């Protein structure tokens, strides 16, 4: 059977993930947490937010692994989050982003089946206009990538899987 075609594949650097969960509060959680992270100049590379059933809201985000301790500290500080909100964190995660031409649901289903068969976990998913991003264990990211490469047909002139450049934002201009 012909392999489904995808447009590309990309791996993130090493990240960590935070899941915040709690009841609806007067202060909107995504706004509150993004403000806290801005105060430490921490970028959220991945974010999902949804008010689930039973009034529970969940905010999940991924940041660089080297910001894990700083972020844990600011979130756990009294008053950072509304009362009763749970914080669950997970170190050493990575994101695999797939650029599908089409058939996003089919691609999603095929990956769920194949990763489950190889005990590769999914910790989060988000789509953009042309891509699907999966959060998984960073230690399994190469194995997860191999599974995808076996399942789908990539373009011959495919770009490198791993980013060769790490971009950082700064408000200080370094001299030569």
């Amino acid at each position, binding site marked *: 059977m012909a392999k489904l075609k995808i447009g590309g594949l990309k791996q993130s650097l090493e990240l960590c993930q935070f899941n915040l969960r709690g009841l609806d509060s007067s202060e909107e959680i995504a706004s509150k947490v993004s403000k806290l992270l801005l105060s430490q100049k921490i970028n*959220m590379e991945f974010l999902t937010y949804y008010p689930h059933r039973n009034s529970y809201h969940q905010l999940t985000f991924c940041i660089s692994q080297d910001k894990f301790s700083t972020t844990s500290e600011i979130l756990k500080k009294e008053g950072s989050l509304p009362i009763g909100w749970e914080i669950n964190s997970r170190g050493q995660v990575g994101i695999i982003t797939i650029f599908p031409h089409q058939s996003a649901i089919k691609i999603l289903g095929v990956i769920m089946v194949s990763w489950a068969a190889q005990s590769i976990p999914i910790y989060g998913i988000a*789509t953009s206009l042309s891509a699907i991003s999966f959060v998984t264990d960073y230690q399994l990211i190469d194995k997860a990538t191999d599974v995808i490469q076996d399942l789908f047909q990539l373009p011959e002139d495919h770009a490198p899987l791993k980013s060769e450049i790490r971009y950082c934002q700064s408000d200080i201009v370094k001299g030569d």
Partner: protein
Amino acid sequence: METIAVYWEPRIKTYGFQRITDLALIEFSCPLSKIKPLGEILSQDDLIVLRPKFIIAQVSNHEISFIICLPLKESKDFHTSLEKTSSPTLHKYIHPVSIIFFHGPHFGDRYGIANATFSSLSKAGLKIIASGCSSASVFLVLAQHDIDKAEEILSETFEVAK
């Protein structure tokens, strides 16, 4: 290699706002132990016609929840096909909803984008139904009647690059 980018922007620049209207949001979940059977359902050939505009999945308490936005007609068919299965469990079917999305230079690598987005909408009293930010894009799902106001607020917060 590390590249440091310095941005001096009175307002964060974006390439512009796009919207998709007349959608329905479907939420369903299954235990993590049942992710493989759910994948088998989603990979069926009769679902290949679906063109989801937004998908997120979140994990908590050994369960994975999916939130998918589809055009109204497709959403009815998808909802009906899920109802016929014993798993996953359907939770919400909301319509009409709209999506507003945007991206900008190195949005995936820069701090402050999420704060500018969520703070401005929160201050304006707009309720976000769902959001997903990945690959340098920000996607927001709102009630259809809130979409004009959301674009107005975001246009004041961000500068559309010319």
